[in-house]
């Protein structure tokens, strides 16, 4: 498919991707110790949404399994995967750096440090459906982002290189703090709990978390939708972008803020899930080209479907034990990405 493919090709691609995502949601909701066939999943969902009784036979336990356990997890995976992939697109575009991922400017180290503190101090409070670990991770991520942005500001400008370097430096400091806490813990359970969080997992998913992160993601997606064509222009250097009528500094600040807000919300409920935010944007760019008005929604759909499938595998391969989801995303994503990279043999940004 040519990446210059016209609008219809792109719209059809989006519709197909949306369809695949919906299929993934249905399939994944049926997978697990208790298998629920896809058609029954659809019927149960239909019944729940419309309120119509469609008289099919199923064990009462399916209702609980589907609606209280699996669906929140699958939908959380959808939202997190979507957010990470979209945030990856934004940061790669903003920093014009193929290595950029959603965690580039301290989101992961800040969130990890926050979560670790909450685990070690055994904070028990909760607010708005989030537990203490999520809340600490969320504010840890945002605080780190603001600190890095503040440190990188020179006069009225925020040079990208300084932003990245400051992010790396402050990130190592926070990671050192996290590691220090893990080593000095008196309770081994706390260390295991932290490690589990650091590798990322959707196993604690509940409805309150799904609805809790929605507003932050909603704000993020709304702004990114509006700003997506400006991301195309930011691919040029700053002088060119400015000469095309873009207020570069203001655009950069808004994009960094809304993207970090959404990522922080996602990370606070899922921990650090690597790879999705780095690779999905590249995969989509390699196949369909780099128009960000298309790249953003497409990456969101691919990231969501990818993360759901990875999570299904993570919880079923060694059932009843669960693998950290980051391992699965890397195991599947890396070979596929390398294959694409070899096949295309062209510039990736």
């Amino acid at each position: 498919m040519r990446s210059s493919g016209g609008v219809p090709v792109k719209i059809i691609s989006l519709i197909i991707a949306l369809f695949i995502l919906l299929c993934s949601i249905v399939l994944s909701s049926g997978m697990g110790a208790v298998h629920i066939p896809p058609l029954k999943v659809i019927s149960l969902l239909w019944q729940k949404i419309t309120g119509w009784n469609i008289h099919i036979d199923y064990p009462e336990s399916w209702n609980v399994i589907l609606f209280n356990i699996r669906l929140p997890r699958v939908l959380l995976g959808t939202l997190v995967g979507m957010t990470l992939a979209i945030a990856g697109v934004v940061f790669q575009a903003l920093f014009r750096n193929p290595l950029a991922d959603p965690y580039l400017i301290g989101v992961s180290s800040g969130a990890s440090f926050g979560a670790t503190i909450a685990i070690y101090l055994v904070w028990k409070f909760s607010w708005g459906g989030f537990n203490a670990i999520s809340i600490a991770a969320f504010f840890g991520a945002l605080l780190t982002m603001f600190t890095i942005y503040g440190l990188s500001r020179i006069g009225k400008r925020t040079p990208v290189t300084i932003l990245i370097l400051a992010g790396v430096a402050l990130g190592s400091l926070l990671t050192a703090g996290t590691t220090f806490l893990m080593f000095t813990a008196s309770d081994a359970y706390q260390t295991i709990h932290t490690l589990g969080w650091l590798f990322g997992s959707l196993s604690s998913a509940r409805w309150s978390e799904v609805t809790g992160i929605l507003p932050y993601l909603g704000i993020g997606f709304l702004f990114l939708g509006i700003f997506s064509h400006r991301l195309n222009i930011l691919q040029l250097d700053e002088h060119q972008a400015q000469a095309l009528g873009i207020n570069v500094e203001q655009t950069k600040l808004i994009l960094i803020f809304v993207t970090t807000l959404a990522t922080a919300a996602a990370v606070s409920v899922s921990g650090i899930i690597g790879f999705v935010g780095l690779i999905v944007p590249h995969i989509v760019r390699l196949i369909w080209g780099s128009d960000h008005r298309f790249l953003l929604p497409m990456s969101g759909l691919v990231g969501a479907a990818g993360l759901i499938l990875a999570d299904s595998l993570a919880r079923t391969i060694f059932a009843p034990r669960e693998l950290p989801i980051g391992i699965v995303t890397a195991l599947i994503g890396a070979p596929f990405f390398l294959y694409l990279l070899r096949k295309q043999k062209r510039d990736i940004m």
Partner: protein
Amino acid sequence: MIKIDKVSFSYGTRSVLHNVSLDIHKGEIVSLIGPNGAGKSTLLLIAMGLLSPQQGNIRVNNRLLKEWSSRDFAQYCAFVPQNPYLPPAFTIWESVLLGRTPYLNFLGLARKKDREIVKQALRWVEIENLLHRKVSEISGGERQRVVLARALAQEPECLFLDEPTNSLDVHHQVTLLSFIHRLAEEKQVTVFIVLHDLNLASTFSDRLILLEDGLVVLDGTPGQVMGNEKVLSVYRQSITVFNRPDEESRPAVLPVRMYDK
């Protein structure tokens, strides 16, 4: 059209421009010439607001630069930088369409009119056949035309160019400048351009401005500027100027061997 009034600028402690004043009129092609480090590119960037001078001010169309919004300014003036970076994965169409940015609504959706104007711009610089190619697949000369087409898609009244012919061969240099010449002639676009090559500057400009160490040394027609002895001293006697038989008002320059005598 563009009025530069007593502008001074320095990078840190290094002073680059001293009290420069210039008036550029509508439809004029004005070339900034001078040795490396004379402040040509800096003056160009200041004239279009990409750098702020420490002293002095600039008016474009009788309005102070700071009174222009970046969007309005981009509808009025376009910029062709030196060796511009274009994302290699963009198609030529996508790259030129970026020139419509200052006209698009907040969602950035191109309308039929925008697409028409982009087509015209591509036709104007004769690259409509490259439409579907990627930036990574075209030559340096074609890339400069893409950037010029993008500038044209902005429908500008004035055009700023910073050494646009760098790294092009003579044929491509002449083609690019001929497009620009035609623009000034047919569309009355004001052109303010930094050129290294004195022959190109002499051939294509209505007016030359010779800068040396941040000062305007000469300002006049190609004949007046190139015919003046000061050109030789600014270039440290490395050139000789003579009248070309085909166009007497546009003198030509050749290099001379130094340290021979």
